[in-house]
């Protein structure tokens, strides 16, 4: 098994690691770097619990090798808090009761981060399709949709201000 030296920037911090070629990015985050907020819910890229932003694009980190992330900018749930304050998305999930067991929540919020960056004013239908790569077993999705709408409104207010 070949080993590779990689450098990744995660939540604005540079990390270097020697990794086996087969190491999945999700395990690099969780096991090598102790960033356990990114979760694993399936083996088939179906559930989205492991969603992170790779160079701004949401990807399922259980389907990316760590070596593929060499040189990349990564954002995980641990990087959502800015200046000690919850992001509008985190606040939305809290205010609208958009989480219960919390297991899918990090992935769901990372997908939402990318969704709102691309489409700041999504319709309900666009939100539902936007988060359809992330499974949630607890909430029935309705409050997640409301949480995303809350975040979109809040971010729009900020832009106007």
């Amino acid at each position, binding site marked *: 098994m070949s080993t590779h030296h990689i450098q990744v920037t995660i939540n604005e911090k540079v990390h270097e690691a020697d990794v*086996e070629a*087969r*190491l999945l990015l999700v*395990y690099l985050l*969780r*096991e090598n770097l*102790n*960033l*356990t*907020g*990114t*979760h*694993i*819910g*399936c*083996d*088939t890229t*179906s*559930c989205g*619990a492991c969603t992170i932003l790779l160079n701004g694009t949401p990807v399922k980190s259980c389907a990316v090798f760590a070596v593929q992330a060499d040189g990349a900018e990564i954002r*995980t*749930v*641990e990087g*959502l*808090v800015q200046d000690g304050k*919850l992001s509008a998305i*985190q606040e939305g*999930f*809290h*205010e609208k*009761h958009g*989480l*219960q*067991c*919390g*297991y*899918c*929540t*990090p992935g769901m*919020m990372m997908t939402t981060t990318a969704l709102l960056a691309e489409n700041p004013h999504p319709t309900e239908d666009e*939100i*539902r*399709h936007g*988060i*359809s*790569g*992330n*499974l*949630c*077993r*607890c*909430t*029935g*999705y*309705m*409050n*997640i*949709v409301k949480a995303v709408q809350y975040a979109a409104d809040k971010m729009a207010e900020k832009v106007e201000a």
Partner: protein
Amino acid sequence: MTEIQGLGHSRKRVEDARFLRGQGNYIDDLKLPGMLHLDIVRSPYAHAKIKAIHTEKALATPGVLAVIDGPTLQKYNVHNMPTFMGDTQMVLPVDTVKYQYQEVAGVLGTDRYTAADGVAAVEVDYEPLPVVVDPFKALEPGSQKVRDDKESNHIWHWEWGDKEKTEQDFANAEITVKENIYIPRIHVSSMETCGCVAKWDATNGHLTLWMTTQAPHIIRTVVALITGHLGLSEEKIRVISPDLGGGFGGKVPAYPGYVIAVAASIVTGAPVKWIETRTENLAADSFGRDYHITAELAGMKDGTLTSLRFKTIADHGYADNAANPSKFPAGMFHICTGSYDFKSAFVEVDGVYTNKPPGGVAYRCSFRVTEAVHAIEQMADVYAQKIGMDPAEFRMKNFIKPEAFPYTSALGWEYDSGDYPAALRKAMDMVGYETLRKEQVEKRARGEFMGIGISSFTEIVGAGPSKHFDIIGLKMFGSCEIRIHPTGKAIARFGTKSQGQGHETTYAQVIAEELGIPADHIKIEEGDTDTAPYGLGTYASRSTPVDAASAAVTARKIREKAKKIAAHLLEANEDDLEWKTDRFFVKGSPDQNKTIQEIAFAAYTNHPQGMEGGLESVSYYDPPNLTYPFGSYICVVDIDRGTGKVAIRRFVAVDDCGVRINPMIVDGQIHGGLAMGFAPAMMEEISYDENGNIHGTNFMDYLLPTAVETPNWELGETVTPSPHHPIGAKGIGESATVGAPAAFVNAVVDALAHLGVTTIDIPMTPRKVWELMHKHGGTLEE
């Protein structure tokens, strides 16, 4: 001043702070120094003799430390384990496997990759044996036997009710209806799979087991019982259930992986982690449902129901690994008379072994209540359809009357409270029932298929009263311990375990209401058997009926002591004191008062002579009865005659769970419950081919609804408090999963009723609906 935030307050969740920041403590987040990883070799066959297990290559793999097999465990007599239902189950096989994906051997590696390498390198010689998958075939004389240690594939027969009177009432009936209803095997698929970390401390003989369990105390006792002969006794076992990524019943049983991990830690002296993959979770963990029900109703031409008769074959797979109360092998299936006033009823259930994974746990429901509700609510429509009566009118006619409560059902349950007509009427008003019926007539005239389905369910939750309820002999009481600190803040611990229900938020509200201490000043803990009072865990919607009750009762005990301290401080007679919100005051002199915070301080600094200091209490609450949440759901569907696709146009849910502790969380529980009612109704099923090969071992084959398929929910409420619960609450975690599936089914059947369709089994996939329509000449042809 900090707000108290007692009952009825939509308090935002305390748990969110860590989950939103990625700081939850789920099982796979735990990392201990020197920890090894366990991975499991599983059987590709549903039934086979194991001729040999070759471990040489695995042991030669770098990083692989050991392979544990059945014969190894047999030396210590831990190769088998008991199930909660008094059955036995293999931990690891000594010579035969009985279902596909059964555990065959455990491989220990220094990390999860090397453990997986080891699994791939283990070679097992199997000799395939004949397989029995169909429970009806399993019952035929001469069938292939699943269990070598049993006489036949028939596990148990259970019956309930007055058989003779039921037969009489059927004989005297003007109308009888009968349908076969299959409620397929499904899987809870919590987003987090199961797993554990076992840490054996050889020096002190202590075992710490972090484990994805909804019931840590039962696990501790079971571990003590099955390992007692090895010197592991209960005070040396600590079970910790960390944050759980969902449970829904799937994290109640003990699975072989946990036991192998414990054995591995004892053998190696190192901490051992075992985390299931999704495939292992779907293919080998306990399933829900799998009930084949023959349902019959009897009654009069005017629509009056008189009698009910249900006969059921329950497919339990290789072992009865359900988690029902001991006296009830079919759970509370005898709630199947539902919301209706029957004169008589008789139900029987036969448990059967097949070459499939063991189980029979709940899928977000209280012990087979969904199966019961599904059958009665579907049959109500079958009856109404047969006599040409509107299903809403039919229900109104047969409902147990509001004035009849407490009501004893034909099968002996004492329903605590209810107002069924009010809930249905409210749902009908919300959905615009009469207008929809007119629209349906117009649409049918145009050849368009729309349907309206009702489900007016009654649930039975909160197990339970010690007279009838235990699991392996352990009574199912609630438990709560509250300690008030000198500064008037508190910690409370419970024998339950939240899996997302928000106990840290809601239990604090119950105590806040009773003691006037702001909920923000009350810390809630669960899940650690070394600190929490003994309790049977969270499942079957029991946390609110049993443990929230316990919280109120414990808080009231503390208030009694607080009153004595207040009397001492105010130099008043106890009888002259009154409680209001957060303080005792002297009757007629509201200025003379002592707040709970002042009293708490005095309990540690200035307590009356002769009284024990401190301010704390513990209680074990034995509920006098179960609680009976209810509701009425109405679903509106439009069916595409070309494709069979069912579009859910509306779904109105009116729930009555008694007093609501936190309305925001109640609504969240209903949303989630509805989604888990929608899922098996429309999408989910675990099926097997004739060789016992499972279909659906991942989320591409076993379909969980996404945000796109899941409908929007319209919620309504009525409030009928439970008369026996200290705060009048009933429980809400599962009502929607129990009540919803029949509403979807009834809507689809209603859309196709004019074609002569009377029933359809779930999941109602487009193909199944299209085939049914096609059979009845209802599809659009090219």
